[in-house]
């Protein structure tokens, strides 16, 4: 029963690597931001699965903080791309 | 003062949910309850002007949160499943006809517009791109516009949503 969680983490890792293709290739900056956002979401998912696989609840807390902070990062990059930075 | 109390109560609720299962008073231990009270008072002192900016306390009514939960579990989730099957179909076949249209939902509060914009983003074939801040009209990117529909100046909500009328639900929640 514990094996399927590790399989799920492996699949999520493979998906993250596939998304990296778009992150490196993406013709424009917004494309790269979209790919980065996907990587963040998949990372949160794999953290949640890992917390079950290792039996550590703390990993889910890390996932919550990661989700909120990556959201702030996305907003910041989006503001910069839209030319709205005041500084 | 009301803003301070509302913010402190909300922060304390979130702290209670996060520390559920730590002790014996209900589900919480004494230390967590005291620490939660102190921390939520500090948070409220710092952030009351951001959390209740409009001087609008209608979201403090618990009934609205119950309706919001119901809305998220039943109509919203069904639309979301529909959206995902739709996107999966378009990913595989590559059949798209995108464009940006203007949608006039007629909502007044900021929270309502936020909810509707997020709902639109997660439902079939639509993605919010911009908001006209004076009239609260939304600019929506649709992945598949019906033939000839692009000539229409202003879209009605019923042109965009198929199964449920989200603006009606959101009016019940946020106005």
């Amino acid at each position: 029963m514990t094996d399927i969680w590790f399989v799920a983490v492996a699949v999520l890792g493979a998906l993250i690597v596939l998304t990296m293709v778009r992150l490196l290739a993406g013709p424009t900056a917004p494309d790269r931001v979209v790919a980065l956002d996907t990587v963040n979401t998949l990372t949160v998912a794999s953290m949640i699965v890992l917390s079950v696989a290792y039996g550590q609840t703390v990993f889910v807390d890390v996932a919550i903080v990661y989700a909120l902070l990556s959201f702030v990062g996305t907003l910041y990059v989006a503001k910069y791309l839209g030319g709205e930075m005041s500084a | 003062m009301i803003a301070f109390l509302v913010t402190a109560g909300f922060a304390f609720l979130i702290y209670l949910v996060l520390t559920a299962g730590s002790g014996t008073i209900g589900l919480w231990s004494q230390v967590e309850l005291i620490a939660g009270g102190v921390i939520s008072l500090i948070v409220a002192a710092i952030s009351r002007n951001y959390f209740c900016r409009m001087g609008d306390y209608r979201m403090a009514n618990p009934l609205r949160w119950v309706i919001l939960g119901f809305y998220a579990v039943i109509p919203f989730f069904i639309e979301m499943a529909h959206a995902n099957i739709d996107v999966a179909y378009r990913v595989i076949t590559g059949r798209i006809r995108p464009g940006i249209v203007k949608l006039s939902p007629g909502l007044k509060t900021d929270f309502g517009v936020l909810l509707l914009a997020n709902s639109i983003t997660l439902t079939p074939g639509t993605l919010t791109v911009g908001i006209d801040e004076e009239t609260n009209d939304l600019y929506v990117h649709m992945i598949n516009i019906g033939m000839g529909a692009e000539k229409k100046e202003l879209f009605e909500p019923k042109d965009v949503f198929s199964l449920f009328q989200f603006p009606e639900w959101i009016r019940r929640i946020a106005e």
Partner: protein
Amino acid sequence: MIADTIIMVCLGIGLLFNALGVLGILRFPDVYTRLHAETKTTTFGTIFISLAVIVYGATRIMQGETAMYLSLSVHTFIALVALAFTNATGAHAIARAAHRSGQVPKPAVVDRLQEVRE
């Protein structure tokens, strides 16, 4: 045994939709359509993965191991809500920034926002 099946099905659906989202990002022609694929499918897929974790926690609670698995389920639920909300808002911000930085939706048939800007 039924719980195991539910967990497997939820995990399978979640991984399938996450994979479709990544495929959409690689396949679609411009940034807006990629955002469509990204937001909807990865949010939905992650919701199902979280549901699998919550069901797992619930079965362990029924077997009598309360404290740790209760907080696992509750925290996963909070992560789920935070993720669903922030993903949609973040997609909105990226779309707005892309439009402001001059990205036109490439095969588009109509663009009302561009008409307003001009």
